């Protein structure tokens, strides 16, 4: 099997067009897609109504208690008055105290959370309005001149520090871009090794050698996984370098203390090893699916037709996880590839959900067993493995199905 893997890998790695495509696809495609999706979500957050968001507030001075009604009127939030002011990531926190007879606001939020940002955008005019009212009252009461007062802008404090957003974006972006690279490379490699080798009759020739059919398929499978991992590693390294460069220059432009951005928040052993582990698992599953799909085709053209729908679905699955409203659930845990990508997101975000991760492991193993038990035997059959049929692809599938039904 080692020699076979060596042959397949050498042949694939020398395919310059395929290599170029595998690297270029994620580099061009993914940042645009990621940016588009996050923008879309930030703007079109109509689904925010479906999610409960708690706004914890504390009004220290009874003179400002009328602000309570304004706070409570913000749509889509569950306002909760609190005496102990301990901000955390799970809600929006406002502390209203008095400073020189005027309200002083302390706002804490998770600025990477679209729902909190939306709620805050509704809340801010109310807070500013209340402040204006109090200034006007003070002017009248104490006969001050209006010019004495400057309208100050409320600056909410991001609960995780100002590096949080960039850390979150990058820690998701980098592994996810590598996922796209893995998907693209595995799809191309599967078509080449399964359908292409049927078309070129190299599989046929290989099977006349003293080798086991299963070994030949496993060799193809392992080659595809290795090729996918290599592509993933190359793009992972490439993306990390590019991202560091882009974000460093962006941070420099933003200036104001952001230049000391701590890269170890993202590029650390834990994140890299977790990402690589997840990428390996994803490569394993995707290879199983693609090799099986491409195995039903006896020509590259047919292979591409068969693999394309799977590519589209599997490519979009990891992208789905950037949607902030998506909470871990059993359906995500049941969906191959998506579940692993989602688990990776949770682990990197330090939001470990043991039940979800266990469900993911159980369902992933189940999928692997099902694929091996029910689809793998199909691949061993001579019409499928060797592509012996001049009939059309649909006919071939029908033929396979009718035989299967007979059995």
């Amino acid at each position: 099997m080692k020699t076979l893997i060596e042959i397949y890998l050498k042949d694939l790695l020398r395919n310059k067009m395929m290599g170029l495509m595998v690297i270029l696809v994620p580099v061009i495609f993914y940042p645009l897609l990621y940016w588009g999706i996050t923008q879309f979500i930030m703007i079109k957050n109509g689904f925010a109504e479906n999610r409960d968001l708690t706004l914890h507030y504390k009004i220290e001075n009874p003179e400002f208690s009328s602000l309570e009604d304004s706070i409570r009127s913000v749509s889509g939030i569950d306002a909760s008055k609190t005496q102990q002011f301990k901000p955390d990531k799970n809600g929006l926190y406002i502390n209203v105290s008095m400073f020189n007879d005027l309200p002083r606001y302390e706002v804490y939020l998770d600025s990477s959370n679209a729902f909190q940002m939306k709620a805050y955008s509704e809340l801010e005019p109310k807070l500013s309005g209340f402040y204006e009212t109090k200034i006007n009252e003070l002017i009248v009461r104490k006969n001050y001149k209006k010019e004495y007062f400057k309208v100050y802008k409320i600056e909410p404090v991001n609960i995780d520090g100002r590096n949080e957003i960039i850390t979150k974006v990058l820690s998701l972006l980098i592994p996810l871009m590598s996922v796209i690279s893995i998907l693209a490379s595995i799809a191309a490699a599967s078509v080449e090794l399964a359908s292409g080798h049927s078309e070129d009759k190299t599989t046929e020739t290989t099977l006349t050698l003293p080798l086991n059919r299963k070994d030949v398929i496993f060799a193809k499978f392992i080659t595809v996984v290795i090729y996918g991992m290599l592509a993933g590693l190359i793009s992972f390294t490439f993306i990390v370098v590019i991202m560091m460069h882009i974000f460093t220059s962006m941070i420099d432009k933003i200036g104001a203390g952001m230049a000391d951005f701590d890269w170890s928040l993202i590029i650390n052993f834990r994140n890299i090893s977790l990402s690589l582990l997840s990428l390996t698992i994803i490569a394993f599953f995707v290879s199983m699916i693609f090799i099986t799909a491409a195995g039903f085709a006896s020509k590259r053209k047919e292979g591409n037709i068969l693999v394309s729908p799977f590519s589209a679905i599997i490519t979009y699955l990891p992208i789905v996880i950037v949607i902030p409203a998506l909470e871990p659930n059993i359906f995500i845990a049941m969906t191959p590839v998506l579940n692993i990508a989602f688990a990776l997101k949770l682990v990197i975000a330090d939001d470990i959900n043991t039940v979800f991760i266990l469900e993911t492991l159980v369902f992933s193993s189940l999928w692997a067993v099902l694929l091996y038990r029910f689809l793998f035997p199909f691949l061993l059959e001579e019409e499928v493995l060797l592509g012996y049929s001049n009939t059309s692809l649909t006919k071939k599938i029908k033929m396979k199905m009718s035989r299967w039904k007979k059995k």
Partner: protein
Amino acid sequence: MEEKIIIKNLNKEFYDPQRGIVKAVDNLSFSAFKGEIFGLLGPNGAGKTTTLRMMATLMKPNSGSIEIAGYDTEKNPQDVRRSIGYMSSSTALYPRLSPREIITYFAELNDFPQNELAMRVEQLIKYFNIGEYADTYSEKLSTGMKQITSIARTIVHNPPVLILDEPSSGLDVIVAQKIHTYILDLKNEGKTIIFSSHNMGEVEKICDRIGIIDNGKLLTVGTIDELRKISGKYYMEEIFIYFVKEFEEKVYNAHQN
């Protein structure tokens, strides 16, 4: 004479959604001896390739048996594979591997002794005159060069039986001539060679015995002189048409009755 290939009552059926069960090979029996070139001649779809594929253990027969170099294809497929060199109708080379790499890898896959491997590869490169393009990716080679590489790869492990599916199809006369010379050399080394072809002249020129096949049935087997005697024709093309037409008439009459 030692029988290297024995085929007995071989049958192979395919399922086609439109045509139902199709008989690709119908009760086929023949044998080939050591040091013999056996030509399998037949029109398109006659069942030649299916027969060769079953001999090469790629397909399993529905019934009947194939024995190659003393091994049954169903009972001892791995031993059969060790005893054969199979060349498919296309060159079947890995496009981005050079002839040297392909020949070396196939020797390794055939469990060729590691200490003799380099010498064997060089010997074949020299014999087939591959040296000039031995390190060029096969996708950049001409059809003739590919075909010669393919033959070298097929015989690298020195098997006693060679199964060649249309080895000279699509080649120009000069390359085809070279391939015929190589095949005759291999026969002189004592190898049993079975090959299929459409080319009547080629079959007439190099085959010791010829089997004509149509609709999965073996119509006749014999040396060229024997076939001439039976058919009363001289040229291979006429002999072939004679047997195929005779068979078609028989089938027609059977349907009429």
